[in-house]
């Protein structure tokens, strides 16, 4: 063995140096990526860019309808996914005891979490757009995205529920409360901050997903914002994709593309930051 011949101290130094370089390389990826997008995008960012629709066949103007579309997508899909996800987690963590049921549900959740986003898109196309007859629409896309984030929300909520100490539940049950009363009055309030953190993190996921909405209702260009859930819509990630691969004058509109990427990045990272702040604030407060 090489290490018997080389001095162990030297081989450790060599190995640790290589490991440190690997870590630095990973950090460099993050740095370079964020740097390029911020540096090239910031110059084109303005209030006008954020509040006006694209003009001149998307070679000028802003991204307002895309921002509105993304916000609508987030609101609709989270409104559906959040209650379903949290209740699923409550069932799994607080009620379910029979192993086979839990196993089945867990298998399904893992499977959903591992399913490629484009497959969700195909499914949304077949079920919501065609079979249910919603057509390419905000509703079809939101339902599809709901399924994409469902496993994320369930797992985060489960994590939150698990970390509530059993003593709290036992205390409540010992006072004569029913299981549901315990869940409602004791467990959920205690788990709330972590559940909210999980929910916020999954918003980031919804905001950035492109493949599922590509097949279920995102539109190339619509100058106004959708009036009903059956309308098509523009969305930030799809808008960036279109601008950078199929737009008119791709080279000349790089600035707009960078700025769109920057807005998307800021939204997603901003959401993650909020989640981290909430988590650390409550973690300090709630020391069991």
């Amino acid at each position, binding site marked *: 063995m090489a290490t018997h011949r080389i001095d162990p101290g030297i081989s450790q130094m060599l190995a640790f140096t290589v490991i440190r370089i690997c870590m630095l390389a*990973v950090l460099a990826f993050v740095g370079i990526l964020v740097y390029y997008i911020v540096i090239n995008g910031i110059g084109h960012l303005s209030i006008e860019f954020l509040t006006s629709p694209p003009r001149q066949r998307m070679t000028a103007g802003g991204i307002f309808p895309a921002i509105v579309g993304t916000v609508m997508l987030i609101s609709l899909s989270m409104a559906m996914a959040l209650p379903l996800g949290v209740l699923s987690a409550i069932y799994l963590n607080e009620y379910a005891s029979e192993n086979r049921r839990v196993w089945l549900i867990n298998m399904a*959740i893992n499977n959903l979490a591992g399913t490629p986003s484009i497959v969700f898109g195909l499914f949304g196309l077949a079920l919501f757009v065609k079979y249910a007859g919603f057509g390419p629409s905000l509703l079809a896309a939101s339902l599809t995205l709901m399924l994409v984030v469902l496993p994320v929300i369930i797992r985060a909520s489960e994590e939150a529920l698990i970390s509530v100490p059993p003593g709290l539940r036992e205390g409540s049950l010992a006072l004569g409360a*029913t299981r549901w009363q315990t869940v409602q009055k004791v467990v959920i309030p205690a788990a709330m901050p972590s559940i909210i953190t999980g929910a916020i993190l999954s918003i980031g996921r919804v905001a950035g997903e492109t*493949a599922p909405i590509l097949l279920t209702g995102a539109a190339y260009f619509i100058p106004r914002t959708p009036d009903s859930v059956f309308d098509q819509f523009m969305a930030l990630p799809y808008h960036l994709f279109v601008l950078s691969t199929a737009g008119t004058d791709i080279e000349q509109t790089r600035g707009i593309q960078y700025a769109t990427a920057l807005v998307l990045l800021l939204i*997603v990272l901003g959401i993650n930051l909020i989640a981290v702040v909430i988590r650390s604030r409550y973690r300090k407060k709630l020391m069991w």
Partner: protein
Amino acid sequence: MNRRTKERIIESTLFVVGLISVAAVTLICLFLFREGIRLFGDFSPLEFLTGTKWYPTSDPAQFGLVPLFAGSIIVTAGAILFAVPLGVASAIYLSEIADIKMRNTLKPIVEILAGIPSVVYGFFGLVVLVPYLQTSFDLPTGQTALAGSIMLGIMALPTIISISDDAIHSVPSFLKEGSLALGATGWQTIYRITVPAAISGISTAVILGIGRAIGETMTVMMVTGNAAVIPKGLLVSVKTMTATIALEMGEVSAGSEHYHALFAIGSVLFIFTLGINLVADYIRTKYRYKYA
């Protein structure tokens, strides 16, 4: 209403809600396979799985999966080849070498990678990496399997790092202390004791990283050039299964042969990732309580 009846109703309701994931997976299978299987009315399944030509618009159309499957595999293999060593080394650094303060600073930075949307990766790859590869390898186009591999590798890093880090972190300290007490250096302990003890978790990380990479759509679609030919290396354009679905679905009419062919690809992808998850799950549960 009686307390007990009320409790029972609530429990049943929660169970029904809990089943939504099961229902979703069942419906996905049903709809995917239902639409996919219709391709095989006129087109033989064997020809689909072993055909080497993907000419969906020629007459007669050819729906051979091989070039697309090979495209997905080569891009994923390239990604894993560089993401695994980098990711595992970073995980070792985070859990065994860095002090607590460093670890708490670096982990959120690595998590940024997980939060960046795939279309932003794709955009970065397209405007920065692709031109760079084109000039440095003197290629006709920089949109190659290599560009896809690099971007997918970066995207798989947070998955590989965080799961490996969990696995390495949960190796009981008495194992490490025993090794150190016998006079082994920190590095000897890491590669003889800690990493082997965490190997099931690290394998899970790698498998899930593969799953993440093979299912990725937007990024590969934007940087790999999308030429549906069997790739002869990393420096040529390739078209993956995911990109094919995303690119061609917009051009087909519902119910056509081509439409069903794209669903058939989706079914293959779904079965493939399902298999990957089952393997990861098996490894995870089998070795979970080894040190308990």
